[in-house]
């Protein structure tokens, strides 16, 4: 009984730690009342205090392990702060300890929605450093498969965005189509998901007739399936209202932040490295750069949808133009020889031994090469000191840069709009955290 008669300051033995508190004049009414243990606190304006909400890192709608700290006024977002690094695997450090060939497998796990694109981006940078080029057939196959990878990535973006705003069916339909692409990879590459398909100066193996037939069968049926899925959501009132005018970003802001890919093109900037700085065989192909002018979630959604059609166009042209010939460059000291020749010829055995044990040893120097991946500009900056492994490898990952727009996009929106905005940005944390 005697305890209750004690004054509030005697109630606890431990003193209130005040060192990290804001000065008295800056304290909110709530904080001061808590410190004073004043039970008679009343508010004239119940909304004068805002709330800090922690979203993630384990949240179904944050596309992996993104954490967003939100300051809310009621349900409106006052400010947002994305926190990254929950999937930081130390790629750039790992690269310094691995030969150029070994790192190909690591690029698969960067943007794990489209492993083939990363393979291609990395290998093009290495080839630029070495000063060699893969033969045309290999370039065509790389282009073809990376467009398939683009479709598979956009399918996930499409399905997950729809699921986040409430349309579960679409995700299942998109995954059904993705499985078909995985089957093609299984046939052509040998692995359904983590492909590791490219090699310095070429690709792992040539594409066979059954692979081409499977790709043809896929692109025959895909437009219809896409239309079917599109009809389900595009004109849906709920979907439309949630995405229209949410997360608007102007072209100037988008360029200033460094957005790339569909997110930039959704703001009306026709920047596409496939056309502006053509690599592989994109200069020989006919396709359009899709832009939308609104810059909101719906615009980014439409850019992705229409890009899938463009990808189909590119795949069709690649299949038509696919030239005959080898898929490995004739550079015995840089390109891994074929297995059957290693076992039968002395020369190839020596080259294989040297490349595997000491690496390809590119000349001293540094290169940067970027490709237009499904997420945006994916670039590799390699610094070489003439050794078998890079001295430094910097990855310019589009998801990381795209996420920087998040505070600006979220500001002023409702809490539930986060899903539509984040879904339309389409970040992949493996790539953002590296």
């Amino acid at each position, binding site marked *: 009984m005697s305890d209750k008669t004690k004054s509030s300051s005697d109630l606890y033995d431990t003193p209130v730690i005040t060192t990290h508190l804001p000065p008295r004049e800056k304290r909110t009414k709530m904080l001061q009342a808590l410190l004073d243990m004043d039970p008679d606190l009343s508010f004239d304006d119940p909304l004068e205090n805002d709330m800090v909400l922690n979203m993630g890192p384990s949240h179904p709608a944050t596309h*992996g*392990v993104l954490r967003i700290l939100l300051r809310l006024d009621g349900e409106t977002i006052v400010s947002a702060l994305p926190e990254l690094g929950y*999937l930081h695997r130390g790629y750039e450090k790992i690269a310094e300890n691995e030969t150029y060939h070994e790192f190909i497998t690591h690029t698969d796990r960067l943007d794990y929605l489209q492993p083939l694109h990363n393979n291609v981006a990395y290998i093009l940078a290495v080839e630029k450093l070495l000063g060699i080029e893969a033969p045309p057939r290999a370039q065509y196959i790389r282009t073809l498969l990376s467009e398939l990878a683009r479709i598979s990535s956009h399918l996930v973006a499409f399905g997950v965005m729809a699921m986040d705003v409430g349309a579960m069916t679409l995700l299942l339909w998109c*995954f059904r189509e993705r499985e078909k692409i*995985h089957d093609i990879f299984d046939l052509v590459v040998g692995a359904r998901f*983590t492909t590791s398909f490219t090699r310095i100066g070429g690709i792992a193996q040539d594409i066979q007739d059954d692979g081409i037939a499977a790709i043809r069968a896929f692109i025959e049926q895909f437009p219809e399936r896409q239309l079917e899925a599109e009809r389900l959501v595009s004109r849906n009132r709920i979907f439309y209202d949630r995405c229209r005018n949410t997360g608007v970003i102007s072209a100037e802001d988008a360029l200033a932040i460094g957005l790339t890919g569909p997110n930039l093109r959704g703001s009306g900037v026709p920047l596409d490295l496939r056309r502006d700085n053509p690599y592989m065989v994109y200069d020989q192909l006919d396709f359009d750069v899709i832009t939308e002018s609104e810059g909101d979630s719906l615009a980014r959604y439409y850019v992705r949808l229409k890009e899938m059609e463009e990808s189909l166009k590119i795949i069709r042209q690649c299949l038509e133009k696919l030239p005959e010939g080898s898929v490995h460059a004739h550079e015995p000291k840089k390109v891994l020889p074929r297995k059957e020749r290693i076992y039968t010829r002395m020369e190839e055995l020596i080259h294989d031994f040297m490349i595997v044990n000491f690496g390809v040893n590119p000349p001293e120097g540094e290169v940067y090469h970027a490709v237009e991946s499904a997420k945006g500009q994916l670039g590799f900056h390699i610094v070489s000191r003439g050794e078998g492994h890079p001295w430094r490898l910097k990855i310019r990952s589009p998801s990381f840069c795209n996420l920087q727009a998040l505070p600006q996009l979220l500001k002023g929106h409702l809490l539930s709009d986060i899903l539509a905005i984040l879904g339309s940005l389409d970040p992949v944390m493996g790539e953002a955290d590296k």
Partner: protein
Amino acid sequence: MGLESALGEGYITTQLDALIAWGRKNSLWPMPMGLSCCAIELMSAGDPRHDISRFGMEVMRFSPRQSDVMIVAGTVTYKMAHVVRKIYDQMAEPRWVVAMGACASSGGMFRSYSVVQGIDQFLPVDVFTAGCPPRPENLFNALIELQKKVEKSSVLDYRDRKEPIIVS
């Protein structure tokens, strides 16, 4: 059985342990701890082709309190390990853990300063699954092995930590 014939149709006799284990086995609700690449294959496991609901597991609960088995799918970094452990602690007993893929089982290909070399360092793991990432079929293999383990468990002493199962 003699007793059942005495009671007539509509009755069976069984052990309570067997009945509860049977129920648990066929309704393992997963907590999809999707961290990286394996999370995409975990999503593939739920797609129309692979159809995880054949095993009574389609009810993916993102709330740890409603789930029975945590599928740790992906690379666990030191920064994330605290979160994973906290979510595991929130799960109600009985609970099981499946380490999906090489990263969760052993750190996989990431021998780097930021990656935990296997979640068994901070979680009791029931099934380790090989693959980088495992195909959905191999994930089902792991889950079927887990079902066998759950089937044999007892109500009072469901946890048999003697030997984790390794599925390859």
